[in-house]
């Protein structure tokens, strides 16, 4: 009976260019015995990914590199209930057409957890691919759509140019909804109940406001089991933890000292990013918050795309939770660090058309000058 299971998920649910596609596979040993699994070989996407284009045709992937020393060693053993997370990026040709592609993880090799009789396979997932700003909804457009395509392309190009001009004139107000699928695998937990693989969608709105020289981040939350008027403490905790601590030093000559990042937790009745339920006791996970503690800042950190920083997460050993000197993703009583704004910064920089960062990173404390040269 197969004891290894593999699940596949996109790194982002947003429509992406073919060269930017990134997915994550998680292989879990659900059995009671260690199972061989060659993690190094599994990192070669060409060995384990199967891709179909929008018309159902198999897409051949580039050849893998020649096997190296680590490929040739025997597979290691994956302990019971342990898992590995594998990330694959750039496996799709940058010139691929847009549309809905299907991808799955598949292997019938023993070193990779499968066999001829029982391959190790994930479900197919769908990845929406954009191409040149035009996304084709299907692979067989109508004649009208074909005739209109050049005009669509012109409209898109004009819009992009107009936006670019506004950015250069420092007059742009740009919005981007973020929806990023995140997984984390905890091991070496004490107690061991914390061990396992968790998943969620980091969702929020980023607004880059050049005239105000600010980056506004909004997390829209629909409450369940509690009225907004009774949950004001959560707003205070979350905003106090994350707002106006760091800034994006986006080098464009507009905001001379960067864009301070302000965060707003907003209660809504629809169009939410997350649903948060009232816990009868203390905060119990990312979406079950209590009124007797102040851990909600840490949970909001997950909503912004951050993983735990206690025990061992994705192979990185952080030590115990709630260390006195730990940052907010280790100890909710402490503040975040610049790295915790990575997804906000990446989104803001993309909106501004920036694809580089200052030496040392472009997210800095609001009290530290952005040094431009």
């Amino acid at each position, binding site marked *: 009976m197969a004891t290894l*299971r593999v*699940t596949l998920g996109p790194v982002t649910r947003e429509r992406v260019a073919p060269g930017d596609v990134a997915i994550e596979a*998680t292989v*879990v040993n*659900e059995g009671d015995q260690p199972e061989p699994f060659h993690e190094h070989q599994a990192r070669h996407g060409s060995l384990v990914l199967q891709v179909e284009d929008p018309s159902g045709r198999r897409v051949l992937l580039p050849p893998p590199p020649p096997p190296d020393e680590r490929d040739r060693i025997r597979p290691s053993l994956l302990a019971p209930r342990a898992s590995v997370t594998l990330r694959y990026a750039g496996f799709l040709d940058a010139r691929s057409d847009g549309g809905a592609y299907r991808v799955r993880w598949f292997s019938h090799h023993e070193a990779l957890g499968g066999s001829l009789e029982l391959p190790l396979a994930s*479900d197919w997932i769908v990845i929406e691919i954009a191409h040149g700003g035009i996304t084709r909804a299907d692979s067989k457009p109508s004649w009208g759509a074909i005739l209109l395509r050049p005009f669509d392309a012109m409209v898109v190009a004009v819009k992009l140019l107009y936006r670019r001009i506004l950015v250069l004139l420092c007059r742009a107000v740009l919005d981007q909804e973020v929806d990023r699928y995140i*997984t*984390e695998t*905890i091991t070496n*937990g*004490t*107690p061991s*109940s*914390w061990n*396992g*693989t*968790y*998943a*969620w*969608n980091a969702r929020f709105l980023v607004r880059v406001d050049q005239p105000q020289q600010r980056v506004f981040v909004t997390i829209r939350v629909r409450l*369940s*089991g509690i009225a907004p008027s009774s949950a004001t403490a959560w707003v205070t905790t979350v905003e106090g933890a994350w707002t106006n601590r760091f800034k994006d030093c986006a080098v464009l000559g507009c905001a001379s000292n960067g864009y301070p990042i302000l965060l707003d937790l907003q209660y809504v009745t629809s169009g939410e990013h*997350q*649903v948060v*339920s009232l*816990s*009868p*006791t*203390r*905060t*119990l*996970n*990312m*979406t*079950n918050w209590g009124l007797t*503690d102040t*851990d909600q800042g*840490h*949970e909001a950190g*997950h909503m912004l795309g951050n*993983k*735990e920083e*206690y*025990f061992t997460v994705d192979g990185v050993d952080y030590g*115990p*939770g*709630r260390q006195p000197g730990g940052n907010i993703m*280790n*100890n*909710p009583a402490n503040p975040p660090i610049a790295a915790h704004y990575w997804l906000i910064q990446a989104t803001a920089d993309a909106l501004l058309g920036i694809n580089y960062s200052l030496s040392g990173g472009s997210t800095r404390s609001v009290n530290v000058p952005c040094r431009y040269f």
Partner: protein
Amino acid sequence: MPLLLELVLTGTATGPTRVEDVAAEGVLVNTGSEPVEVDLVELSSPSLALEVVDESGRLVPMPPPPTPGRPDIVAVRPGGRRTVPFRAFIPLTAPPGRYHVRLRYREERSRWVDVEVAKPI
């Protein structure tokens, strides 16, 4: 640990239920002759205490668990029981369909119960 676990669905709806309306109660009974210390944080957090699998038997990943380090230890006397409520514990991103859920605490597991998640309105 001499513990007996049970998970009971407590929602009023019959048939497919919206994700946010799914509710259950976890029951832990000390079947031994000595008091047992139980961490209510572990027992109450859906991410730590519930195992959810889909119709194909695949484990459904839960949202991130609570930060460890602040256990809430209670003693359950011999024959005593502790109940904990669970609400909206199927991840919001889970597609409609049938799911199997069970309660777990350390090495102990309850029987599976079935939950059918309705399509969103």
